[in-house]
C-alpha cells in the first residue's frame, strides 16, 4: 500500500508532472510566472482546489452517472474555486490583486478536470486526496521553478513581494540577486515564458536521461556482481 502512495507521489511531482510531462495548464503557467512569489501563490491556490475536488469527486463517484459527470465535475470545481477566490480576496488581498483574473480562471484549468476524470472518479477517497495533493505540489513546483528562472533573468530578484503572500516573516526570502540590474524585459513578457518553459522541459528530459543511464549502469553492475558470486 505504501508503495502505491509512493507511486502517486512520484507521478505527481516528477514522472507525470502536470506541466513537465502532461503539458497541461499552460495558460495560467505562462501568465502568472513573472515572479516566483506569484507562481507560488497560484500553485498553492490550485493545489487547494485539486485536493478538495479530489476529495469531493471521489466521495460522490458512486452516484455520479457517466452521462452527467463532466457538468458535475465542473460545478464542483467552480464552487471550490469561488471559495478559494473569496478567501484569498479576504486574507491575502495584495496577492489576490496581483493574480487577479487568474484565480477565477482556475475553473478552466484543464489539469484539475483531468485529474477528476482520470483519477478521482475511479479511486477511493484517500488515494484521490493524496493524488490531488501531489499533482498540486508538482504544479506548484513547476510554477515556482519557472517563476524563479524568469524573475532572476528578467529582473534580477528572487521571491520579490513574498511578504505579500506569506506574511511579513517571509521578507527574508526576498533577494535582490543582481544589484543594478537593468532588467531583461523579454523574459518577463509572455514570449519569455515560452522560451524559459522550453529550456526547463529540455532540462527535465536531460535529467531523466541521466538518471536512466545511472540506473541502467547500477542494474548491470549488480547483475554482473550477482552472476560472479
Amino acid at each position, binding site marked *: 500500500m505504501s508503495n502505491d502512495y509512493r507511486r502517486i507521489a512520484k507521478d505527481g511531482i516528477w514522472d507525470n508532472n502536470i506541466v513537465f510531462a502532461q503539458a497541461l495548464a499552460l495558460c495560467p503557467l505562462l501568465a502568472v510566472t513573472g515572479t516566483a512569489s506569484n507562481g507560488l501563490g497560484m500553485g498553492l491556490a490550485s493545489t487547494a482546489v485539486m485536493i478538495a475536488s479530489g476529495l469531493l469527486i471521489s466521495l460522490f463517484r458512486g452516484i455520479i452517472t457517466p452521462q452527467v459527470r463532466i457538468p458535475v465535475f465542473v460545478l464542483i470545481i467552480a464552487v471550490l474555486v469561488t471559495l478559494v477566490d473569496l478567501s484569498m480576496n479576504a486574507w491575502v488581498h495584495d496577492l489576490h490583486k496581483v493574480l487577479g483574473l487568474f484565480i477565477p480562471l482556475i475553473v478552466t484549468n484543464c489539469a484539475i478536470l483531468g485529474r477528476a476524470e482520470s483519477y478521482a472518479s475511479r479511486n477511493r477517497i484517500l488515494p484521490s486526496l493524496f493524488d490531488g495533493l501531489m499533482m498540486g505540489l508538482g504544479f506548484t513546483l513547476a510554477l515556482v521553478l519557472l517563476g524563479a528562472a524568469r524573475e532572476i533573468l528578467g529582473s534580477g530578484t528572487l521571491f520579490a513581494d513574498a511578504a505579500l503572500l506569506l506574511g511579513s516573516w517571509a521578507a527574508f526570502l526576498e533577494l535582490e540577486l543582481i544589484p543594478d540590474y*537593468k532588467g*531583461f*524585459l*523579454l*523574459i518577463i*513578457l509572455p514570449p519569455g515564458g515560452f522560451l524559459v518553459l522550453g529550456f526547463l522541459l529540455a532540462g527535465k528530459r536531460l535529467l531523466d536521461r541521466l538518471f536512466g543511464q545511472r540506473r541502467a549502469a547500477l542494474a548491470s553492475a549488480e547483475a554482473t556482481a550477482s552472476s560472479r558470486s
Partner: protein
Amino acid sequence: MIEEQPVAGPYTHARTSIGRTMGLVLLALLPATLYGLYLFGWPAIFLFGTTILAALIFEAGSLRLAGKRVRPFLLDGSALLTGWLLAMTLPPWAPWWIGVVGAFLAIVIGKQVFGGIGQNLFNPAMVARVALLISFPLEMTLFHAPVPLFSAQAPGFLDSLAITFGQSDQLDAVSSATTLDHLKTELGRGVALETASGGVGSLSQLTLGEASGSLGETSALLLLLGGLFLIHKRIITWHIPLAMLGSLALLATIFHLIDPQSYVGPLTHLLSGAAILGAFFIATDLVTSPVSIRGQLLFGAGVGLLVYAIRTWAGYPEGVAFAVMLMNACTPLIDHYLKPRIYGRDRKGEPLTYADEGGEV
C-alpha cells in the same frame, strides 16, 4: 536497402557549398562593414569583435551539447555570418553585453534550438535584433553621429574600451537621432516635412553613410554594390530585393504625392535605415525565404509593404527586422501555395495529357 550504382551522366559540378556561399556573402558585406567600422571608430570595432566571438562560442557550445561534430559546422561560416549581420544591426557604441546577449539569442534560441543550420524558421540575426530591441529599448536606440577613426573627435583606444566594456557616462555628449527616428518624432509632433528634414542627413550623406545609425545602416552605396555582387555571383536572385525595394518605393511615392508635407519621399525611405541591408542580405536568407520565384516576389513585396507600414504608422521608427520576421513566418504558407509547376505536370500536379496519347489537345 538497395545500393544504387551512380550513373555516369553528363553532369557538371556547381561547386556550391555552405562554406562558399557564406564566404561570398561575407565578402560582399566587407566593404560596407569596413567603412562602418572606420566611421564609428574603436567602440564599433570592439562591439563587432565581441559579437562575432560570442556567436562562434555559442555555436560551438550548442553543437557540442547536441552531440554534433563541432569543427565542420563551426567552420562553414554560418555562425560567423549571423554574428556579423547581428553586429551590423546594433548601435555601434552599444555596450559589450548587448552583443553577447544578442549572439545567444541569435545562435541558441534563433537557430540551434530549431536543429541548427537550415532548420530555423526565422532569420537568427533578426530574432536577436527584435528581442534586444524589446528588452533593452534604451541601449538599442542610443545612436551616435559618426566620428571617423583617427579624427579629432574620435575617442582613443582606451576611452573606447571604457565605452564598450565599462560604465561610461560620456555617451550623452555625442548621441544623435537616426534619420528615420528624427523624421518620425518631428512628423508626430505635426511639424511639416520640409522643416523636419532640416535636422537630418541629406540624401548624399545617406548614400555615402555619413549619418548616424547602426553599423550596417550607413553606406547605402557600398551595401548596394555588395548586393549586386551577390546577384552577379548567383548567391541570391534579384527577385526578393527588387520586390522589396520596389514595393517600398512605390508606397512611399504614392503617399508622398498625396500629401508631401506628412509622408517621407521614396529616396529617403530607400537610402535610410536598414532598407538596402535588409533587401540584399537579410530578406534573401536562403533558409527563411520561399523557394519558388513567384513566392520570392510575393515575399519581397510583403516585406516592403510591412516596412513601409511600420515606419509610417507603427510605434517604431524602423521596421525591417519586424517585417522580415513576419514574412519569415509566412514562408511555409507561401511555399505551400506557390509551388513551381513540376515538369510534365500541370499546376495541380496532374500529368499533362498529349494528343498523340489519345488525350485532348
